[in-house]
């Protein structure tokens, strides 16, 4: 595959300038409130546009822009069924947890998910355990994003892989530690706009180049009739897997700590409702287009040098060089926005949940700022070291961190905010049940567990049963502890 040359460089540098400019503006706009509330939830001042765009930019990672079109290139229209759970991602995410978490966060002052769980159950152990799980799993997910970003830069800009990783770590580390949550949210919003416009422009040019859906049908049918079926080639998507992904997309998104942090940052209920509406519209425009680019790519560029080249190869094949640079900024934006959000959540877990909340003396503002910035850079550097020499088991951790985090946290979090009878024994049982069940099934069966379903589906059940049984077999929490969450 050939690079788009100077146009890509100009677009990329322009993109970086805007990103840093937004981080600078966000820092200047910072509220005068407590440092941690400003740095980790932007002073709870996010309005509907920024909230909606930062939520979707965090949710859509390098996988959405590199992996998904490649799957569509390999498996044709079946990937549209694979992704179809996104139809209700916004409804489930905001209806099931978003509004409730936002309300509870405002009443109790929780800044992070471990914060919320720790206070709800009056248990420092639950706070520390969940913070530790978040750091380990998010850092491994960050490594995968570094690698994806460096690969894109290597292919498109000719930047050596190692320098690409260093560049990603420095860029994201600087603007995240400089501006905190507000900077991440603002840059996410810009990146989400780049992603959507990039994809829609690319789809328009791809359809024009191929001559419409008629020639796409003929091109796919000539290669393999299976590319037109719901199962795809070599039974890529049996009905059990299709059903599993309809569970995974909405519920794994709802249970992601980085997305829960967005709910804690919203200004009020009205902003949250409007953000939910915007995300539904954004998803409707984005995901079918991403998949259609991969499918059209199968006709325009049937042979790829590497499986992950479907999106950039299709864009380079059909988009004028001047626009290619702009369009190719979309996957970079997706990777950067996810990286910065995960970096901030990991940093908040270390500084807020593992250090500050377990310290007897209060932390003054200057120390808090220095410690947070140091921690953010340190986590970015740890990710960089792993990305330069990825451990063999990295891919397993990445898969686990995608859905395993949600399998661990979703049921305990749901029951914590909706069921007064839930207590810390139930919370621990639910977290350990989800974590161990997912890990064991994944190790034993891979992605197809009992009955052909994904381990995530069974793990949610195990986690829910564990949480309920643990709570019912131990004593109730005192009314005073429950009052802020459920009223009198």
């Amino acid at each position, binding site marked *: 595959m050939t690079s788009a040359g100077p146009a890509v460089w100009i677009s990329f540098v322009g993109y970086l300038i805007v990103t840093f400019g937004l981080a600078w503006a966000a820092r200047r706009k910072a509220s005068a409130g407590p440092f941690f509330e400003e740095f980790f939830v932007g002073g709870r001042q996010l309005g509907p546009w920024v909230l909606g765009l930062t939520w979707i930019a965090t949710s859509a990672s390098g996988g959405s822009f590199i992996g998904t079109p490649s799957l569509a290139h390999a498996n044709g*229209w079946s990937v*549209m*069924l694979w992704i*179809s759970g996104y*139809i*209700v991602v*916004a*409804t*489930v995410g*905001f*209806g*099931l*947890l978003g*509004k*409730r978490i*936002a*309300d509870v966060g*405002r*009443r109790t002052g929780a800044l992070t998910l471990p914060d919320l769980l720790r206070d709800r159950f009056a248990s420092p152990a639950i706070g520390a355990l969940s913070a530790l799980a978040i750091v380990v799993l998010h850092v491994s997910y960050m490594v995968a994003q570094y690698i994806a970003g460096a690969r894109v830069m290597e292919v498109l800009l000719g930047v050596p892989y190692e320098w690409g990783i260093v560049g990603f770590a420095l860029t994201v580390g600087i603007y995240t530690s400089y501006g905190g949550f507000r900077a991440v949210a603002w840059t996410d919003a810009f990146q989400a706009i780049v992603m959507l416009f990039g994809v829609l422009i690319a789809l328009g040019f791809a359809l024009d180049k191929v001559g*419409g*859906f*008629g*020639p*796409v*049908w003929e091109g796919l049918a000539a290669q393999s*009739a299976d590319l*037109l*079926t*719901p*199962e795809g080639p070599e039974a890529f998507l049996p*009905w059990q897997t*299709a*059903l599993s992904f*309809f569970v995974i997309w*909405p519920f794994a998104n709802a249970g992601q700590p980085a997305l829960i942090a967005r709910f804690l940052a919203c200004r*009020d*209920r*009205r902003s949250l*409702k*409007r953000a*939910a*509406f915007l995300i*539904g*519209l954004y998803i*409707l425009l984005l995901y*079918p287009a991403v998949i259609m680019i991969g499918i059209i790519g199968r006709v325009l560029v049937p042979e790829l040098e590497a499986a992950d080249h479907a999106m950039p190869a299709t864009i380079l094949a059909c988009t004028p060089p001047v626009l290619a640079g702009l369009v190719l900024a979309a996957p970079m934006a997706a990777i950067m926005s996810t990286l910065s959000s995960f970096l901030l959540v990991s940093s908040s877990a270390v500084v807020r949940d593992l250090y500050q909340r377990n310290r007897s003396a209060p932390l003054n503002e200057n120390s808090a700022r220095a410690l947070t910035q140091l921690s953010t850079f340190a986590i970015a550097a740890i990710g960089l070291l792993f990305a330069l020499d990825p451990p063999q088991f990295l891919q397993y951790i990445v898969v686990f961190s995608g859905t395993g985090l949600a399998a661990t946290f979703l049921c305990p979090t749901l029951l914590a905010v*909706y069921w007064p009878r839930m207590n810390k024994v139930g919370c621990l049982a639910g977290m350990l049940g989800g974590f161990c069940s997912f890990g064991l099934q994944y190790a034993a069966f891979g992605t197809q567990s009992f009955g052909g379903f994904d381990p995530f589906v069974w793990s949610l059940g195990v986690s829910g049963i564990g949480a309920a049984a643990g709570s019912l077999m131990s004593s109730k929490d005192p009314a005073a502890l429950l009052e802020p*969450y*459920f*009223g009198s």
Partner: protein
Amino acid sequence: MTPYRRERLEALVAVAIWVAAVLTTVGISIWLGSARPVESVGGVPSWVVFGIFAPWLAFFAVHVWYTLFFMADGDSDEK
């Protein structure tokens, strides 16, 4: 209705919408997609048009109702 009870109702309705979406989307896609040869609607497989695109638009309309009209707003301290 207290905010807690209201939010619990909204959560249950969100789960009901998810159930309806699963049954509609996966059900129609597999039912129409099992026919051979697969039929084309304007160059797109019929199971994609009626099993994915049409439900996606329908559930987006439901999403608009849910987020803009059904979800309650107001102060978080209301009783």
